[in-house]
């Protein structure tokens, strides 16, 4: 139920569009000493950011003894023991990996379908009660998720969804972010193409499917990436609604792993690698969309 990444995109709204020439602050030529100092600071900061992750990967390829004896050396011997223990141990991490993929994919699809349809109506159709519906959706953006925690737990329990994939996919798709995000995009699309299609006799459904959705592909892709990351990284909600080990996703699974292998650092780090590689790869592929969804409005101006 948390939204670590999604609302980030809304930040775009805070950065006002600008028409001024963009660009770096231009001051006279800088002294080489200052430039060197600048790079030194940036490189040191980058190391602080990266080293824990490098260390996570290195440790995961060590034996337990090596991990404890030589915490900051290269793995010697290079060992896949940690991964072997993980895949054959009592903690079904491959199952968690699969559950995480399934849940994140399902929720993303659910958000794309429901939010795009709803956003089309809010952006393009004129109907009774529109302001009320839109106002209601927007106002819930202001409510912190903790308010929904207990009642949603009871609702999910009554639906018989506790400890199932439905608990971690469906309620989270009800958030207002997706529909808000896509509505903003749809409103910005030129209405002429749709009107031309309407004159050619196309109905709302055809216009939506054949004109609006293809035009909205970049926005849909961005929303898909953000939704996937969001669900993949969700922690509090799955910790409480998933109960049996075989139904866990990676995030609550990892916290179990930490408990089960407290001093087996190589195994714990291997688990962390398994959980972070997919999102880091996704970030590598879609980093432009992810970062620009945060800074988008400023660039668009």
């Amino acid at each position, binding site marked *: 139920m948390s939204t670590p990444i999604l609302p980030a995109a809304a930040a775009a709204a805070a950065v006002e569009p600008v028409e001024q020439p963009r660009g770096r602050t231009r001051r006279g030529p800088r002294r080489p000493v200052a430039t060197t100092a600048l790079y030194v600071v940036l490189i040191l900061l980058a190391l602080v950011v990266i080293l824990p992750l490098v260390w996570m990967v290195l440790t995961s390829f060590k034996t337990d003894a090596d991990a404890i004896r030589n915490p900051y050396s290269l793995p010697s011997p290079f060992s896949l023991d940690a991964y072997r223990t993980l895949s054959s141990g009592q903690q079904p991490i491959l199952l968690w990996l699969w559950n995480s993929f399934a849940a994140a994919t399902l929720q993303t699809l659910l958000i794309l379908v429901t939010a795009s349809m709803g956003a089309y109506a809010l952006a393009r159709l004129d109907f009774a009660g529109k302001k009320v519906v839109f106002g209601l959706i927007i106002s819930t953006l202001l409510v912190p998720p903790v308010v929904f*925690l207990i009642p949603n737990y009871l609702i999910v329990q009554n639906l018989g969804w506790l400890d199932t994939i439905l608990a971690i996919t469906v309620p989270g798709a009800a958030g207002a972010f997706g529909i808000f995000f896509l509505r903003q995009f749809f409103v910005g699309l030129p209405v002429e193409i749709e009107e031309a299609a309407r004159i050619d006799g196309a109905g709302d459904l055809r216009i939506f499917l054949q004109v609006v959705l293809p035009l909205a592909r970049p926005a849909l892709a961005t929303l898909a990436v953000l939704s996937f990351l969001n669900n993949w990284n969700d922690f509090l909600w799955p910790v409480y609604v998933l109960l049996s080990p075989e139904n866990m996703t990676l995030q609550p699974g990892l916290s179990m792993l930490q408990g089960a292998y407290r001093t087996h650092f190589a195994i714990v780090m291997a688990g962390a690698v398994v959980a972070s590689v997919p999102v880091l790869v996704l970030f590598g592929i879609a980093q432009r969309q992810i970062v620009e969804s945060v800074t988008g409005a400023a660039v668009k101006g």
Partner: protein
Amino acid sequence: MRSTVTDSIATAAVAPRQTAGGRGASRAGGPARRRRRTLTAYLFLAPFLVLFTTFVLAPAVYGLWISLTDWSPFRDVQSFIGFSNYADLFRSGSTTHDDFWQSMGATGIFVVASVPLLVVVPLLVAVLLNQRIRAATTFRTIFFAPYVLGVAVVGLVWGYVLDTQSGILNHLLHVVGIQADVPWTVDTPWVWVSLVGVTVWWTAGLNTVIFLAGLKGINTELYEAAALDGAGAIRSFFSVTLPGLRPVMLFITTTTVLASANMFGQSYLLTVGGPGNATRTAIMYIADQGLSQNNMAPAAAMSYVLFAFLAVVSIVNFRLQRERVEKGSAR
């Protein structure tokens, strides 16, 4: 539970555009056509509205109702008891009073300790990245990367880094001659240093890229004018950069305060709320009471009290900073 917050600004940003959707009005026909269009629109909205009603609207009301009852999962009929659960939270000596306010205090400490760093560090990094440098995009990517990781990964990796006996940080301290085994995750005040530090490592990249976007929106002519007036780097930072960033600053402080106030995973994974319950945050206590201890009614009441607190903090912050924004633009 990091960012409910961000959305609030989004809301403010949308409001003025609200009328933009009314294009269909020109096509308005008779009442029958209008009724058909309304039907069409609601068919498009139906799938979302079903989800929204079930998991957002209903629980908001249901939670309020639960907080006004003596809810027990072991009984079929729940009875209405008015504001007793709320009154208990404000009456010292009740079963929930001390623990709840301790958790609110822990949340407060974390907000006060983390927000200044989560604003200042990203601001400085963004200013550095906004200089004419090579590989600015690469640096930006690196600084943002931890933010895409889940809190569980962050907790595991840092749990290992910060481990008192075998953690790499204490190892490194030994190497540079500091022999103290710093209890990073088990004793105050170190637990706070760790929780804040880990959170900065994890989320500073988000604020950095937002500040960077804001910096790129500042008219470069202002810097040139300042330079002509003889302003150095420091002067132009305070007289051009900071005023130019005011709207972004409002956004970032609001969202960061709310994100920090919703902290859960870091404490859950790194300190397990300890030592004692010193780092058990409000969210942690509410989740534990409501979902593990079956004290759902008091927990629901607590979530509304926390909501009210956050609303007040956001409004005060918004008022204070908006005044500055307005004064700044009037000057």
